[in-house]
């Protein structure tokens, strides 16, 4: 049944070798009072063909971005994932390996993580990167934990224009970490550097997002400077896809840079699994959570790679560890490395240019049709907020009936924006797709 390897004859010869008469005997160490005596109340086993049909039926009940023209974003994006990513990630040597505790068995994944760390540091302008975190939300909590211990302070300032889920996760972690959270409201879709600087007094970290949750391009260098003046660590949450055209946080003084890696090499997959990246200045390396791969040499002097600085980690330091993380998102981060290598530096620049150009085009065409952008004087990247004149959730429902998902209803997270849609435009959308969006929004909300 299932994937069990033993034949009846194996079972009897193995039981004999063990010196017991039955399988039940092996389970006698479980006290009688806590043995489970009935059969599990679940559906009968299926053959592979039946499993496939069942899962195909479930998959068919989802409106995915291959059948519905989608402008959804807000943290997860329908960017193109090249075929070569599938090819590498389906190699069993990567797919079915454990964390590389034995480096002689795992040079492939160790070198790949080293190359990934390099790519993340190149993107962000940071000195050190870990091997990945769970997602773009949990790495924000990690960054706050690093900052608390690096500064000895316990206040964390979050710009309200940071993705709501990211802020929610930081707040969930805060009581255990002993963090006090202060939020700085957005002003017309952006964060005011003076206001952020005032709130940053005595803070361990100041977290802002570039581009922010509204797609707006913050004056990130001014925000980092305002945070830094008070001794708080400036932490930037960035979109990797933007980092061909937007300045690296390392170039404007950030101490830690984090982000959601999904758009760079992972499918949307209803929210996961994806990878979160976390990179920092060199002086923070011993406070970093999670795996870090380092270069070294073997007994013959050949270059090789190992998990390093493991004295930070839970399996060595236990209650004094910098984090409890063990399983991370290595395979997804590998997807990110393959993707970024496929794209190359020129490709990343062109991708950023294509996204911003398509988004500007969409903004203009919607404007022509009478849909004003919410924060009209703010520059944006690949995502922007637009007013639809009525409850955005109703507009989404009506537009979906016409085969278009027009975006995210910002009223779900922000007061006063019930009539606002957050529209994301990736390089997979075409000019004709944008015309279709305008046409459908005009029909349902014009």
């Amino acid at each position, binding site marked *: 049944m299932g994937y069990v390897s033993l034949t009846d004859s194996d079972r009897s010869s193995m039981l004999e070798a063990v010196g017991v008469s039955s399988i039940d005997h092996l389970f006698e160490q479980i006290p009688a009072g806590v043995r489970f005596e009935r059969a599990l109340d679940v559906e009968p086993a299926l053959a592979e063909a039946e499993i496939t049909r069942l899962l195909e039926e479930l998959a068919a009940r989802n409106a995915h971005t291959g059948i519905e023209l989608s402008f959804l974003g807000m943290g997860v994006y329908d960017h193109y994932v090249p075929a070569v990513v599938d090819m*590498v990630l389906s190699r069993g040597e990567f797919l079915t390996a454990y964390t590389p505790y034995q480096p002689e068995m795992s040079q492939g994944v160790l070198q790949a993580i080293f190359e990934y760390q390099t790519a993340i540091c190149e993107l962000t302008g940071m000195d050190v990167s870990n091997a990945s975190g769970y997602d773009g939300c949990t790495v924000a909590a990690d960054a706050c934990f690093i900052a608390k211990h690096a500064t000895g302070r316990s206040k964390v300032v979050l710009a309200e224009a940071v993705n709501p889920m990211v802020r929610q996760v930081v707040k969930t972690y805060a009581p255990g970490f002993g963090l006090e959270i202060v939020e700085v409201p957005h002003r017309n879709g952006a964060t005011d550097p003076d206001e952020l600087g005032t709130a940053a007094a005595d803070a361990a970290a100041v977290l802002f997002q570039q581009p922010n949750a509204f797609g707006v391009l913050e004056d990130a260098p001014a925000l980092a400077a305002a945070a830094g003046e008070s001794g708080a660590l400036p932490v930037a949450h960035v979109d990797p896809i933007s980092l061909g055209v937007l300045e690296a946080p390392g170039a404007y003084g950030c101490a830690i840079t984090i982000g959601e890696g999904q758009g760079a090499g992972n499918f949307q997959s209803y929210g996961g699994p994806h990878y979160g990246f976390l990179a920092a200045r060199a002086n923070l390396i011993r406070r970093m959570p999670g795996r870090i791969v380092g270069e070294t040499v073997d007994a013959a002097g050949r270059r090789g790679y190992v998990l390093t600085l493991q004295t930070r980690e839970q399996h060595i330091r236990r209650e004094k560890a910098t984090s409890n993380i063990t399983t991370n998102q290595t395979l997804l981060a590998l997807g990110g490395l393959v993707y970024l290598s496929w794209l*190359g530096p020129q490709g990343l620049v062109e991708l950023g240019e294509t996204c911003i150009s398509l988004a500007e085009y969409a903004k203009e065409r919607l404007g022509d049709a009478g849909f004003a952008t919410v924060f009209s004087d703010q520059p944006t990247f690949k995502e922007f907020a637009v007013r639809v004149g009525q409850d955005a959730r109703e507009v989404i429902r009506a537009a979906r009936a016409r085969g278009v998902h027009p975006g995210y209803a910002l009223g779900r997270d922000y007061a006063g924006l019930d009539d606002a849609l957050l529209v994301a435009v990736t390089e997979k959308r075409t000019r004709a797709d944008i015309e279709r969006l305008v046409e459908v929004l005009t029909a349902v909300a014009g």
Partner: protein
Amino acid sequence: MELIYEKSRPGRRAGLVPRPDIPRADVPPGLRRATPPRLPEVTEQELVRHFTALADRNFGIDTGFYPLGSCTMKHNPRVNERVANLPGFRDLHPLQEDEGAQGALELMWRLQRYLAEITGLPGVSLQPAAGSQGELTGLMLMRAYFTDRGEGEQRDTIVTADTAHGTNPASVTMAGYKLEKVATDPRGNLDLADLRTKVTERTAGLMLTNPSTLGLFDEGIEEVAEIFHGAGALLYYDGANLNAVVGRSRPGDMGFDIVHINLHKTFSQPHGGGGPGGGPIAVRDSIEPFLPAPQVVCDDDVFRLDHDRPKSIGRVRGFAGPFGVFVRSYAFMRAYGPELREMSEAAVLNANYLLARLRDVYDLPYDRLCMHEFVLSARNLKREHGITALDVAKRLMDFGIHPPTIYFPLVVPEALMIEPTETETKERLDQLVDAMRQIAREAAEDPELLRTAPHTRPVQRLDEVRAAKEPVVTHSFGTSAVSATGAEA
């Protein structure tokens, strides 16, 4: 071998990006990047060859036997990969309206039902991203539960076993609790006398793996539960070793109030070289109101994400969890149905068979039948021949077998922790036995062969001290201290 950055040449590229015929827009000049990131510039062919060469230098379950204790390295059925990559799952946006994600929500709801039945605990959250995040979530739930009862300040301590995974004490610290450790008795159970002195009105709960990291079921578990519940405290079950007991014993019936399940262990999500994982938690009704939001619920055959959970601890990660992992694990469970019990039975038989055939050549610190894994000690080889668990592990590589977990749990010196799983054939088990018996002979006859092992891998033993002393964690783009061919510059 060379890094992909060392294969890079200016102007080469693999992928092209659409350049639509629309007016070109740009970011404000003050925000424009000055110097592009030095990403690799390679052709697609070289890209494929590079990662193929890296794959060749890596060892997975697909390559061979991987009896890494506590990690449950079982076969990863390929149908699970195929169905996880159906466009309806893979290309579904997580903020799609519930009406447009009924298939995904139903799958999650069904998975929750399976996990509730397997654990004997009715309330399930699929959100945690891995086992360690499940642990942290569990401890947050304890805090929320006690705060709700007005005991939040008073109960500030969590008890763990001295055999615990390192994640347990690390999670305790991250959750803001104090740590108390309890000893293991000579049979490998929790030392009840020690335990009684450590459970007080300040105790919030226990974190325990059962069977323990010694591969032994705690024979006093009912008394342990009574002690904690008697003191008003809760019990948390670290599900890392659930593969031993599915359909044979349920954490909820053992007295645990909160449990996490490692979908990447028991339910065959591939480990991916270090992730992704999935760490759902299941809880008693009394703790259900505090579970993370959103929750998948079903009203009249319509599925939805319920965000309106006033007592919830909040969200612990983005969206509703690592959905691709759920697809794989659900497909895996459906291949077994109620016979999941046979999965655990075979895992336990395989482990006991290995133990029976190895116990005369390696020390056995706890002489009992084991569950799905067991811990031997190489201290006899160390005492007699100066051969360590590390030497045994490295030599095993030369037999094409991944080493077991070594030096864990900490209570066993020179520990070799072996977990075969249910998917290995008897012939594979016999190969491991033959290899480990030969290594024990070699320890006496040719110890140097072991101390210099492995001899057949792409690299020999690596200098980990050097790596940690002056960490080199990124490529230096031309100023590297170590050349690609090995000689130091």
